């Protein structure tokens, strides 16, 4: 993997729908620089868009931190979305498809989880929510028909 020595770490505010555009553009550039394929880039950017919108709409704004990570064999991109909003009382429910407390399609959290390799959520009612996702470059695909 070349051209990544400078790192892609950044901390971006999420306070308006213009910020969502910056988050998407930054994540796409960072993923492309790490060597993510087009489909994996698209999945990660889409997940980032869902999570950033959650931070904005439900968390009342916050920030995302992007960090380049390595597990020794491959590199990845880790995104941590943090807000200090009302938090989520029932995480299981919030992660299930079709659930929404706003006017979305209810795909936000559960859908974003399917688009990344690793997903973690930590939420304290009244204190805020932190969602951390990681995707890796060129992970062997899940077991499925591969021609």
């Amino acid at each position, binding site marked *: 993997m070349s051209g990544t020595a400078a790192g892609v770490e950044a901390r971006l505010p999420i306070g308006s729908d213009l910020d969502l*555009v910056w988050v998407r553009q930054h994540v796409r550039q960072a993923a492309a620089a790490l060597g993510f394929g087009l489909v994996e880039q698209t999945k990660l950017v889409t997940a980032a*868009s869902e999570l950033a919108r959650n931070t904005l709409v439900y968390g009342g704004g916050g920030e995302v931190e992007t960090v380049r990570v390595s597990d020794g064999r491959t590199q990845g991109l880790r995104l941590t979305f943090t807000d200090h909003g009302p938090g989520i009382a029932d995480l299981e429910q919030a992660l299930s498809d079709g659930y929404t407390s706003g006017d979305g399609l209810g795909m936000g959290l559960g859908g974003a989880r399917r688009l990344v390799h690793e997903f973690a959520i930590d939420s304290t009612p009244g204190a805020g929510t932190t969602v951390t996702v990681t995707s890796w470059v060129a992970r062997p695909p899940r077991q499925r028909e591969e021609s």
Partner: protein
Amino acid sequence: MNDDFSRTGAAPVPVLRLGDILLVTLQGDLHDGTAEQLQQDIVEAIARSRVTGVVIDISGVEIVDSFLGRVLAEIGANARLLAAQTVVAGMRPAVAITMVELGLTLPGLRTALSTEAALELLGRPDAAAPRAPRQEPR
């Protein structure tokens, strides 16, 4: 909503009329406010111009998240209530793969691989149900 444009610097999406069809070409990364404004513009244009079809070309769109997906679905539903059909054209393969995984399959919207194919679909409503064999463009 118009105030949002000056605040965010996002340009509205042009809505062109071709005969009795509206052609909308989405490009790049859409602000939420721009997408919502577009929805309103299309509905007003349908009613004003009495068009019977709407083609939304998304070949220049890099991602469709649940917000933009909802906007597209609502444009289709609005158009249907105003007696117009909507076809979403030119979705990128990576976008289609991601939308399915996200759980966003937009069952109410018709799709076509290109704007040309979408216009053909709308121009021949009786031949539209079974998809006509299409020529590969390249």
